[in-house]
Each structure stands twice: as C-alpha cells, then as structure tokens.
C-alpha cells in the first residue's frame, strides 16, 4: 500500500535521506529504527509532505503522491502523529479531536469521538481542558486519538515513546497493538529499538540516510549487528532510555 522508491531529501546542501527504499503492506506494523540523526524523522516528514523529496517516489495505494502538499496527503488517509505530539495547546482536548475529522474528506472513520474516548478514557475526563495543560503521555494519546478521528488508512507515528515514563509507554504501545489487531496499518519510527522490534512485524534500520538492513522483527532481534548497536545491555537499560 505504501512504497518508497529511492527516496532522497536534503536540507540545503545537507542530504538527510540519501536513498530510502521501503514498503508497507496492508495490516502490517512496520518499525523504522536507527540512531539519532539517521534521517528517520526527515523520511517521515517527506512522506507526510512537510518536506519535498529531491529524488525518488512515494506511492500510496494506486497513487503517486510524490510532492503532494501535506494537507492533501493527510486527506488521502496517510496520517502522521508528529514527533513531540504537536497538539494545539490553546484549544480544548475535544476541539483537537474534532479537528482530526478534517482529514476524512468524505471517507468514513472507524473512530468517532466516543471510540477515541473509549480507547483513552482520560481524554474524556479532560475533554474541556486546554490540550496544553495535559501531561506528555496524555498529549501523546490525544495526538493518536486525533489522527484516528481522520480515518487513517496508514497511521505513521514519529517517536511516540519520546520523553514518556515507561508505564505510559506501555499504555501507548498496548493501544497500538489493539489498533493493529483491528486491522490498522501502522508505520512506527522509534529510537527505542527493543520496544519497536517487540511490537512490529517487520523492521527497517536506517543509518546516515540509508536503509541499511531490513527483515522480520523477530529475526532482527537476534541479529548480532542489531544486538551490538541497538540493544545495549538488558531490558532495564532500554526502559531507562525511554524514561529519559
């Protein structure tokens, strides 16, 4: 459903993504991992139309969406939960969620306001509160809920665990598993490799703007190259990083 072919993106003379080729199939949960500065976020921002690629193509279902504007891509059903949540702080929680419907553009969403509240009950309690007053974890839930309101055909998450306490990370990932079991296709970008590999079907590893490795997540978890660079020490070390 999503195919990136030799995608490249530059900031001026700096090539952040040099050559990325990957594909996502219907119903998959795909992880994209790699160290800070590998170009993961740049790749996502190119995918969602915030940045324009300098080379390569993006196909979404049967359409070539290379170079489309961000709002048009969102209305096509490719919805991004941006890094740092980016909730609209001065608006209420409910306003934020209702704005998510703008991406529908005639499509149906499986998630209305009530479904999102059922998924994240805390948002119902805070519905009249300004989004900026929520905790980081609640904002992450709001950002996911807002994207669900737009009826995503592909949900893209940029670093959902960033800056969250481990217990909140577990809650968020539990919801992602629920969504995936309901048939939603998800592309997950994570620095927390062990978390991402545990949650996903397949994974891509990015370094210095290249996709250097890919395969079923189960295999990658036991790949010595991955263990050495991305899975330091035991689970405890990784949770500590997630909490940091």
């Amino acid at each position, binding site marked *: 459903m999503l195919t990136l072919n030799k995608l490249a993106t530059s900031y001026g003379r700096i090539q952040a993504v040099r050559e990325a080729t990957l594909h996502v199939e219907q119903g998959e949960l795909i992880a994209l991992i790699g160290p800070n500065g590998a170009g993961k976020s740049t790749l996502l921002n190119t995918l969602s139309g*915030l940045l324009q690629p300098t080379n390569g193509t993006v196909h979404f279902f049967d359409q070539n969406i290379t170079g489309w504007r961000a709002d048009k891509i*969102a209305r096509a059903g490719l919805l991004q939960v*941006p890094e740092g949540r980016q909730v*609209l702080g001065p608006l209420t929680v409910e306003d934020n969620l209702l704005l998510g419907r703008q991406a529908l553009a005639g499509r149906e969403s499986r998630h209305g306001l009530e479904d999102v509240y059922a998924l994240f009950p805390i948002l119902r309690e805070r519905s009249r509160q300004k989004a900026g007053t929520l905790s980081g974890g609640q904002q992450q839930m709001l950002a996911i809920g807002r994207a669900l309101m737009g009826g995503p055909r592909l949900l893209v998450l940029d670093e959902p665990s960033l800056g969250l306490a481990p217990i909140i990370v577990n809650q968020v990932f539990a919801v992602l598993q629920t969504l995936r079991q309901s048939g939603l296709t998800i592309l997950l970008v994570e620095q927390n490799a062990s978390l991402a590999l545990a949650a996903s079907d397949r994974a891509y590893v990015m370094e210095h703007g290249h996709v250097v490795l890919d395969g079923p997540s189960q295999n990658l978890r036991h790949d010595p190259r991955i263990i050495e660079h991305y899975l330091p020490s035991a689970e405890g070390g990784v949770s500590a990083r997630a909490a940091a």
Partner: protein
Amino acid sequence: MFTQQLLNGLVTGSTYALFALGFTLVFGVLHVLNLAHGAVFMVGAFAGLYTVTTAGLPLPLALLVAMLVGGLISVAVDWLALRPLRQRGTTEFGAIISSLGIAQVLMSAGQAVSQTQIMRFPFGTFPVVIYQFWGLRISLLQIVILLLSLMLALALLLFLFRSDFGRQIRAVAISERTSSLLGIRPGRVYFQTFFISGALAGAAGVIIGLAFNSVHFLMGEPYLLRAFVVIVLGGLGSIGGALVGGLLLGLVQTFSVSYLSSSLSDAIIYSLLFGILLLRPSGLFGKLHIETRVVRA
C-alpha cells in the same frame, strides 16, 4: 447630559469596534498588521455608495454589496501582498510594508475614481427618525449602528468558537504546519479569514459613511490609527477585546470632548494607551504575550 454623552460614546465606539474586528481577526490568525484594512474599508464604502447613487438600489442591498466587495478586495490583498511573503516565511515584518503599499494603490484608485471629492449618500437613503425619551435624543441610525455592530461581533464570535470553520481558523492561527498534517487546507482558511475581515470592513465603511455622511478616499486612515489603539486596549487578536476596546475608546473620546476640550481628546486617548501599555502590556483582556498568536474569545 451625562447619559446623552454615554449614548453618543457607545455609538461612536461601536463604529470603532466594527472597524477593529476585522483588523484584529487577521492579526490573531496571521500575526500580521494588515495596514490595507483602512483602504479596504474605504473601497467598501465606495461600493456601497455607488450601489445607492449610480445603481439606485436600496441601502440593505448596498450593505451586502459593500461586504462582498470588501471581502473580495481583502482576499486580493492577501494574495498579492501577503501570500508571497508567507510562502517565504518572512511575513511578520514584510507584511507591514507590502500591505502599506497595497493601501496606497487602493487609495490612489479611490482618489481617481472620486476625483478627490467628498461624496455623500443622497438625502433620505436612511430615514431621519429621532427618538426622544427621558431627555435623551437618539436617531434610528444610531440605534441601527449600535445594534449592527454588536450583532456582527456576536456573529463573528459564534462563527469562530462554535463552528467547524472557526475551529479550523483557530487551528491555523496556532500552527499552520500541524493543521496541514490534520488535513486542513491552510489556503482555504486564509481565504475565509481575509474575506470575513474585508466584509466587516466593507460593512463598517457603509455604516460610518452614513453616520458622518461623508465618503472619501482617505476615510480609512484615521480609523486605522484608532484601530491600533482599540486592539492594544482590548488585547491583540482578541475579538471580545476589540469590541470592548472600541466601545471604551468611543466613551473616552466623547467624554473628553464634552467635559474637557476637543483639542485634548487625542492627547487623552494616547495617554490612556500609554498607561495601559505600561500597566498591562498585553491589553485589558490579554494574557501572555505568546498567546497573541491565538484568536481569543
């Protein structure tokens, strides 16, 4: 005497508020001072006047024409002067220069069209009816001005805070980038914002042109200057603040003219502005400076 002045002050103030509403709306959404707002107001007044004089149509229709023309001109101002800056991300300072340039073009056009004449609505365009009660005098026109200003302000508030379109405008005011990730078309939001702002200016042009029975190519300038005071008083980007700020300015002006001296009225107004900036830098209804980007109630 006091109540009469109070009434006059409210009527004057409501014209200031009407003008300032559209001005503050654009500021709240784009963080841009649209210095062409006074010229759009003038063009609206011209359109309304010609609808009555040349086309011979009734006043309510002229008001609608003025709002439509004002709205479209305002959208054109955005397209020509502000949109190119937005795309380069240099809006905030550049917009002051480019909107000022457009204002000059519109005023020159107005001067050419009117041949530098002060024009008037024909006698009887609005029926001259004066009510007298409890020793007060108020004309039907004054009542209509007051009510129309309040109604338009209320309609704008309802639109912004109770409708899907309004929610989109507020979202883009906070972050165009995040809004576009949600599927909101920023271009459409700017179009709506400028159209509404211009339509309000057009309505204000006809109403003020009628109230003072004077329509000329420079009529927008004093109002633009007053609008600065109004939105600073009320808090930048605040709709309710523009309404209250406008009424307050009208009252202060009327009282200082009637109890002190008309030559002192500007000095008093700007001293008030200075005092408020000193004590409440974000205006009477402003909160934090950072929130001036947001359209507030």
